[in-house]
């Protein structure tokens, strides 16, 4: 089980309480598809992904980004039980979606950059440390049931 210090929990909760999940989620997923274009391989059914403008404006991208970040919120609410929280999602990503777990790490790093751009100086090094730890734990939990 991952150990979270009281400070780390507080930093995570405090940032999360101010996150606009719909906006941040949409931005994070759009940036993933733009910065690492090979990730578009999972979204052939999303329609127009032909340019950054198309990706940012794509309603399916926005909706899916919101869905992904909403799910991330479950980790924030269950910091002491992330493995169990994501067990079924892990199976899904392996068996149905066939997503290379490296993509979870890529999205996690992108999310950090999105948070940094929104929170600016409030996104202190201690904050980044806690959040990098969190995205790492989430990525690990999502990869855990792969076989």
């Amino acid at each position, binding site marked *: 089980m991952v150990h979270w210090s009281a400070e780390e929990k507080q930093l995570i909760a405090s940032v999360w309480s101010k996150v606009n999940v719909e906006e941040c989620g949409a931005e994070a997923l759009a940036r993933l598809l*733009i*910065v690492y274009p090979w990730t578009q391989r999972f979204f052939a059914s999303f329609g127009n992904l032909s340019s950054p403008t198309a990706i*940012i404006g794509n309603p399916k991208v926005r909706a899916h980004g919101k869905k992904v970040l909403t799910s991330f919120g479950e980790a924030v609410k269950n910091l002491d039980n992330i493995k169990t929280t994501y067990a079924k999602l892990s199976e899904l990503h392996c068996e149905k979606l066939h997503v290379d777990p490296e993509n979870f790490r890529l999205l996690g790093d992108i999310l950090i*950059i999105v948070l*940094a751009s929104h929170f600016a100086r409030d996104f202190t090094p201690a904050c*980044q440390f806690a959040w*990098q730890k969190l995205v790492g734990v989430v990525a690990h939990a999502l990869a855990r049931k792969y076989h």
Partner: protein
Amino acid sequence: RMFSTYPQTKTYFPHFDLHHGSEQIRGHGKKVVAGALVEAANHIDDIASALSKLSDLHAQKLRVDPVNFKLLGQCFLVVVAIHHPSLLTPEVHASLDKFLCAVGNVLTAKYR
């Protein structure tokens, strides 16, 4: 920020004062960013030539594990996001990330 976020990176600087704001960190950060990164950006079509000596240094002497260049790159992007959020559009983000990867690749190119 890299030393705070990824404490394992401190292992390459046992000889430094690593307290936040230390002169040594400021000096070294300046060397890396204002020095090497700017040099690479100014010779972006031939980063390997521009950073050839640094590439030798990292291969022969410093031998920083390749994974660490990604960690520094991540922190660099975070700092840019903090100070210039409106500059870091998705396209600029993509280009910067690509550039930082290219620099990391050059610096580790002679490792073996």
